[in-house]
């Protein structure tokens, strides 16, 4: 079920009404209802994969309980390894099997040997990367004694499958989300209103910004040979807003929906395109994944505590794994590697934590220096997105070459499909600028559209209706959420 679908528009009010009116704020009843709703939500896409979530949940619930009862460190470690093996094994099978066998076969062609491999004709279960990481956080935290294992199977199953964030995050830690399933939840008006605002803005980001950007980005990326450098750059800029609008929009809707049910999910995007360096960008982009890798991979590997070589190695590992997490394609690994290359100089110069605050805090506008820093960082990010979006690494390099060939840098254009006319979607570019302005005013907040709450009731309603109407009028052609494939 997609958030921007009619089905969800019917599903959400039904669950909301049942949740608050029929359960009488009884936690057990609420959790059972959420569990059923989550399984319906996921099963709407393909009910067969419900067994996979149920299996994964059951394994980690059982292992978690067992770890909690086991004192012997060796036995605890073996249990943790079993959980890692099952979860990562399923992820590997469904997501990476074909990639590995194909890469293996391709490697042999270097030696002049052709190996025929059998691809598995399997569907990638939606959200497998997200819920696998979420459930893994539980067993790891129980193993590390940061969390007491739960005895309540319904709570745990509801935690793993919680429908607002099941298929595309934010990837919640068990330490943060699971206790919320065990606490009484009462309806809070302000929280619910915040949630609705966040849903509205998330839908705007997805339906208006991302889907319209996707239209132009797809035209450019699918016919990249027909474009000059500036047009390719424009296509990459469109993609940067597509992926931001798509993913942060999804996260906003997820966070907003969870708030309607009395839950707090972690912030997943903190206005990353206003970052002044790449380290700040990575503190603001897909926060739930970055911090997951930091806590469960970077720190266990030694983090920044070792020597220079250790820091460089660990940083590379983190970014490569992060790239690989996004998809089984070398382009994602290249994207991760490029980000590591961006990041390492800051790390070596110990400047990776020099921009910890919000840009231009307490000021209306950024300074020229900040503007320059943001521009450079955004440009670097856009170049990296070329690898993320391009079909192959070769295509990404060809596009970069064209962008940096200044003789090829004329007026940007998009070739209109069907007519072949060269156009520049000026009105849409203007709407992106307006969108950025709203985000700029919002940059110090953790929930969406907060500055508008200071306005009078009537103005506020007009703005919300305007946003709602824009979603209806300016919606682009429906695109699947990009991060569903991860």
């Amino acid at each position, binding site marked *: 079920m997609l958030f921007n679908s009619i089905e969800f528009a019917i599903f959400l009010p039904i669950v909301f009404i049942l949740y608050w009116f029929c359960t009488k*704020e009884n936690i057990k009843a609420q959790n059972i209802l959420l569990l059923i709703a989550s399984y319906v939500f996921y099963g709407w896409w393909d009910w067969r994969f419900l067994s996979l979530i149920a299996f994964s949940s059951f394994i980690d619930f059982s292992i978690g309980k067992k770890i909690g009862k086991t004192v012997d460190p060796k036995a605890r470690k073996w249990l943790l390894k079993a959980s890692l093996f099952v979860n990562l094994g399923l992820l590997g099978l469904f997501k990476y099997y074909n990639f590995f066998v194909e890469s293996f076969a391709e490697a042999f062609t270097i030696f002049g040997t052709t190996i025929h491999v059998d691809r598995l004709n399997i569907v990638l279960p939606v959200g497998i990367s997200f819920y696998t990481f979420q459930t893994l956080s539980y067993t790891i935290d129980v193993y590390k004694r940061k969390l007491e294992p739960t005895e309540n199977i319904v709570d745990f199953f509801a935690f793993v499958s919680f429908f607002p964030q099941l298929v595309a995050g934010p990837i919640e830690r068990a330490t943060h989300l699971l206790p919320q399933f065990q606490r009484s939840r009462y*309806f809070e008006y302000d929280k619910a209103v915040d949630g609705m605002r966040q849903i509205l803005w998330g839908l705007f980001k997805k339906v208006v910004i991302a889907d319209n950007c996707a239209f132009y980005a797809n035209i450019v990326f699918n016919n990249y040979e027909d474009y000059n450098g500036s047009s390719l750059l424009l296509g990459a800029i469109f993609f940067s807003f597509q992926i931001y609008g798509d993913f942060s929009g999804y996260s906003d809707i997820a966070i907003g929906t969870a708030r309607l049910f009395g839950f707090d999910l972690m912030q997943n995007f903190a206005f990353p395109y206003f970052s002044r360096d790449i380290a700040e960008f990575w503190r603001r982009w897909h926060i739930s994944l970055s911090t997951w890798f930091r806590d469960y991979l970077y720190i266990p590997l030694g983090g920044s505590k070792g020597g220079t070589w250790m820091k460089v190695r660990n940083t590379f590992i983190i970014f490569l794994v992060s790239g690989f997490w996004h998809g089984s394609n070398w382009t994602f690994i290249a994207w991760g590697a490029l980000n590591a290359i961006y990041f390492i100089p800051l790390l070596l110069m110990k400047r990776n934590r020099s921009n910890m605050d919000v840009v231009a805090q307490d000021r209306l506008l950024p300074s020229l220096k900040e503007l320059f820093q943001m521009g450079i960082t955004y440009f670097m990010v856009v170049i990296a997105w070329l690898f993320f979006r391009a079909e192959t690494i070769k295509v990404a390099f060809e596009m970069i070459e064209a962008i940096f060939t200044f003789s090829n840098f004329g007026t940007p254009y998009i070739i209109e499909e069907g007519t072949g006319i060269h156009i520049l979607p000026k009105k849409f570019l203007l709407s992106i600028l307006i969108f950025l302005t709203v985000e700029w005013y919002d940059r110090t907040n953790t929930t969406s559209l907060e500055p508008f709450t200071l306005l009078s009731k009537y103005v506020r309603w007009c703005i919300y209706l305007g946003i709602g*109407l824009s979603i209806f009028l300016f919606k682009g*052609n429906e695109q699947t959420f990009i991060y569903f494939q991860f």
Partner: protein
Amino acid sequence: MNKHLFTFNFNTLKTFIFKTSLFCLASIIITCCLIFTIDGRSDPFYLRFTTKKQSSLILGTSRAAQGIVPSIFRDSLNIDIYNYAFTVGHSPYGPVYLESIKKKLDTKNKNNIYILAVDPWAISSWCEEPDNINQFRENKLCLSYINNVNSLPNFEFIYNYDQSPYNLFLKKTKMLLHTDGWLEVEINKSEISNSSRLKKEETYRQEHLPRTKFSTVRFQYLQKTINYLNQFGEVYLVRIPIHDKILQIENDLNFDFNEKITLLKGYKNYYDFTLIRNQFLFTDGNHLHRSSSKDFSKILVSTLIKDNL
């Protein structure tokens, strides 16, 4: 304590639901208001799905949509005829168009007239297997999924609209769809240039012609359409005039088109107006200019009168 808390939350919950419902209601009201602003300049098709069932029809592709003016029929013959022609993508002869015609047709009277515009494109397919119905382009377009073609407003059309709703509600085009179904393209004579015709000619020659193949199934469906309409009135087949260059391409596509038409049965007459093409002005070689559409419609009406309509 808990009971008190629940009562308290229940009130705020009611306020929340009330305000959310109010927001949804306001959004729906604004949307409904917008729906009633859709006019003939908003979309070249929408109004055709909002009128009542029609007795007499003009059928075919965009040539007929732009080239045959129903008001001329009303003025000269006192016949209310409705232009229910779309484009070569949407309404070539086939199962989709025939079903849509059946939905639009008022079958109470038996003395109606039907003008079927025919040309080689309207009985050809743009797919690998020209006789494979599953591959027909129109299967994915609006005529195939709109079940109710006589509803004002037409929510089915709006809901399934495949472009940005902005185009439907707020954008105004240079095309005006009249209430009788005639699509008037507002291009002045001074705006007509050879370049637009040459461009169209090149598109037809380079892109359309290689992809297009004569379809026996479509030809059979043209016959089925004639047979169906024949029950309720007289059917006339008309080949609308086009520019010389486009005619050459058309002859390359189907050189024996006129002979093929003679194989059809059940129609009263077939008029090939491409023979008098030099009398008319074309916007792009393929479509009559609006002034020529009226001239052509007058010639068509007088031909029908001569034919003892």
